[in-house]
């Protein structure tokens, strides 16, 4: 089967009637407001999910260019989808927001500087080579210059946190010949992740190979479409996604067990490719890809004999990315996996709350993003763990700004535990607990009463 990119222009996302119908499924229970990060922070009903749904409905009913204040409140949405998890009415807020943002981008004229900044983010970050070049240049720009250009400060921060390829661990771990063959997977590198922290993908590849998977790398796949989609550029998102599908197609035809991506933000979008391409000729392929898209932790949890080869008794604070918890609906997956390998994972209070990273949000809404980042970092510190772990590149970098120690990706911990190189975040740390501690913890319970 050969797919044609030109066909994707026939999307029907700007269908106002569909959006209004979606909005009408909101029956205003209000459970969503109390878990919405922006409502919790700002206390403005228009910054709550149901407030935004009302604004979206009004925007579509009225048609034409949206009111600027509507754009402000919709821009402020993190798209964390905590609201969807708590919604008793089952409102598909994700789809509604995608459609609303697409309407805004096609009907609203943003100030020139803002529009240019958004264009830059969307087009540079989604192209790894251009992004890497930008990062390399940005690392050499004096901080004083960054302070002078609005928005640039955030980009420079991001660039400085990047770990260049040459500095990343390069210890190769060949596929264990004794491992039972479990299947064949494609590991996607992600556009931002491969530039900012390529070692995460290296770790994912190693651990999958070690577990008996044939790992196929497709560096020609750049962005999955998530960046464009979250910024309201549905067509651009479809084009990126279509390129991804096109590259995956031959491997699907050869037989593929999973499409793995170690950035849950990307995974949550690829998992919804079926929705993105509904009604187009891409739909069948998109649905096949959606059905086999996996976070690495999902796959690793299915390996019956996965076990640690080192003393892993580190206390690990786990920040669950919204894209993993709400998007992929895999709550507590990292905790369960780490616990299985002997780590001591700690739930972080307010696990439903976004850290403020949210794709390009931290660069577009820095004030709210920083408040959420600080709040989340405070909660992480409150559990007194030795290490912080997460499963999405955006969260790792954003939280790193507010924590004394850079967080580490879950898959890097798993890789190390099962024989891979030690993530630098663990350097100098000694596992504070071991299995004996764990049994003592149980016995510390007032056992006599039981």
């Amino acid at each position, binding site marked *: 089967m050969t797919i044609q990119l030109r066909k994707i222009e026939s999307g029907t996302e700007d269908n106002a009637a569909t959006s209004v119908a979606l909005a009408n*499924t909101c*029956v*205003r*229970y*209000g*459970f969503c*407001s*109390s*878990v919405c990060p922006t409502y919790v922070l700002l*206390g*403005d*009903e*228009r910054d*709550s999910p*149901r*407030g935004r749904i009302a604004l979206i409905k009004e925007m579509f009913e009225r048609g034409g260019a949206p009111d600027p204040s509507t754009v402000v409140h919709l821009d402020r949405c993190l798209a964390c989808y905590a609201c969807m*998890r*708590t919604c*008793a*009415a*089952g409102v598909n807020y994700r789809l509604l927001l995608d459609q609303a943002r697409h309407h805004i981008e096609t009907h609203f004229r943003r100030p020139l500087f803002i529009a240019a900044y958004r264009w830059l983010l969307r087009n540079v970050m989604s192209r790894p080579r251009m992004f890497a070049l930008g990062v390399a240049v940005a690392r050499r720009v004096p901080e004083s210059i960054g302070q002078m250009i609005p928005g640039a400060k955030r980009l420079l921060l991001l660039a400085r946190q990047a770990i260049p390829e040459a500095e990343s661990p390069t210890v190769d771990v060949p596929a264990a010949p004794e491992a039972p063959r479990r299947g064949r997977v494609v590991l996607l590198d992600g556009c931002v992740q491969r530039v900012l922290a390529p070692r995460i993908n290296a770790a994912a590849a190693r651990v999958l190979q070690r577990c008996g998977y044939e790992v196929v790398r497709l560096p020609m796949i750049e962005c999955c479409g998530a960046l464009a989609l979250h910024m309201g550029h549905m067509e651009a998102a479809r084009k990126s996604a279509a390129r991804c599908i096109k590259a995956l197609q031959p491997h699907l035809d050869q037989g593929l067990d999973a499409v793995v991506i170690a950035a849950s933000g990307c995974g949550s979008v690829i998992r919804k490719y079926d929705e993105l391409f509904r009604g187009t000729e891409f739909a069948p392929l998109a649905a096949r890809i959606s059905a086999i898209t996996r976070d690495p932790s999902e796959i690793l949890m299915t390996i019956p004999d996965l076990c640690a080869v080192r003393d892993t008794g580190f206390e690990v604070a786990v920040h669950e990315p919204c894209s993993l918890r709400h998007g992929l609906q895999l709550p507590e997956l990292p905790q369960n996996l780490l616990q299985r390998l002997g780590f001591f994972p*700690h*739930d*972080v*209070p*307010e*696990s*439903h709350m976004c850290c403020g990273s949210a794709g390009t949000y931290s660069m577009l809404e820095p004030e709210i993003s920083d408040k959420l980042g600080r709040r989340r970092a405070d909660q992480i510190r*409150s*559990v007194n763990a030795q290490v912080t772990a997460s499963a999405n590149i955006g969260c790792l970098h954003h939280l790193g700004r507010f924590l004394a120690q850079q967080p580490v990706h879950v898959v890097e911990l798993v890789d190390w535990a099962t024989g891979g190189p030690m993530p630098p975040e663990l350097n100098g740390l000694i596992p504070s607990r071991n299995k004996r501690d764990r049994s003592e*913890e*149980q016995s*510390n*319970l*007032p*056992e006599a*009463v*039981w």
Partner: protein
Amino acid sequence: MSSKSSIDKFVADVSSRLGQDAVNVSPDTLARYGENTSPGADVPPAAVLFPASSADVQTIVQSANAHNVPVYPISMGQNIGHGSRAPMAPDQVVIDLGRRMNRILEVNEELGYCVIEPGVSFQAMYDELRRRNSHLMISTTGGPPQGSLVGNALERGGGSGPYADHFGSLCGLEVVLGNGDLLRCGDGNLDSTSPLNWHLSKNGYGPGLDGLFAQSNYGIVTRASVWLGLRPPATETFIATFPDDGDLHRLIDLARGLKLSNFVPSRIRIINDLYLISAEEPDPEFRPGGPALSEAGRKALQKKYGLGSWTVAGAFYGASRQALQPQLERVQSYFATMGKGRFIPADEVKQMSPLQRVLHGFAGVPSEDELRMLRWRPGGGLVWFLPSLPMIGSVVDEMHRITRATCERYGFEYLVTYSCGPRSHRGTHPIIFNRQDPDESRRADACYRDLTVEFAKRGMSVGRSPAQYQSLHQKQRVPTFQATCNAIKKALDPNGIIAPGRYGIGSES
């Protein structure tokens, strides 16, 4: 009825004394705070206030007295199906305690309690205990995880674990009275800077005043202690399902024995088919204005989900699964005397989606899953009918038949979960309807009122009520009770400032 100018002056006064952040009068906010799920209209308040401390609440109440403006306190505003955040009347000003008074003031591991403000949710307390790696656990409800522990207890909400009596677990209230005074109940009123028993004992000196502030409008509770259970190393839930509607009679009598002997430490839940299944999928036969789900439709759903008409669940707490095995076996043989039904093995329970929600409750894990039942019908209408019934099988069976027939007569399905104690239990009946359809709203209202009459005729009433029906229930009480409630109101809140009309006490306007 307070005038617009007096409300404006009150709001301006509060704003000047507590800051602008403590006041919100934006039309969007007022409209949202007026929303509710009852058959009646929305009731937008005149303003919303956000105090940050007991002293702030005192300031607000004093100012409200000075300007003669009634206030309506809420905690987290998650009281869906009971009135949500909406006040009793539009001239009332909502005091939202949840936004800024959400501190966990103390967790006492040794004596097993926490001291919290009204804005502390089930989820926040659960998170805090996890963070501390505490040996304590909370009792949760089937309601929203973001609901208030204190608010739920003051409404006499119920849980399912060993501390399921939420009001019974509340101790040592701090209350701002209608005149602005601050009262501490129990030993909190000892003239001492460190009353050691404040949060420990309800049996101190003098009248026990705590009960006055549950299901009333006599004061604004600004902090309280909640007694917490010990988190056991093992929680083992037993779940059995029974095929026929008529099995309820015997099940209630059997559950009574288990509770009177305290053999089962948790509440025993007896849950009907559609209460469990409604959270899985919408009514497959629903059409606007149509009849309730057919008997054939109900049986088909039972078969699809592997459930009978009634499912019984309870939990044991102990050192290990092995240690609890004898209790599990004993309870299994006990219910085997029914001669029908089946116990569902723990491994199978894990695969049955409708039963996951039951497990969460007994383990003290907050979950929003039970609320998915609200998708059963479109339109967002919900009122809870919550009668208290004696633990006598014949009585419960009769009321079950009357309630089922009444619901179906009005075109609604019969959904119920009974939460059984030793002597009485509460039947939790959600009436789910399309609030955007005037006819369905009218039918839901009529259904609720008919049920109220049917139960009252047989000597029973509700244990909790949606705000819209509180005066209805109060009027079913004898005049002496009503007069006494109003006299207490007059004594503690002489100007009728706090939530007039709530629980049918004092005049709404």
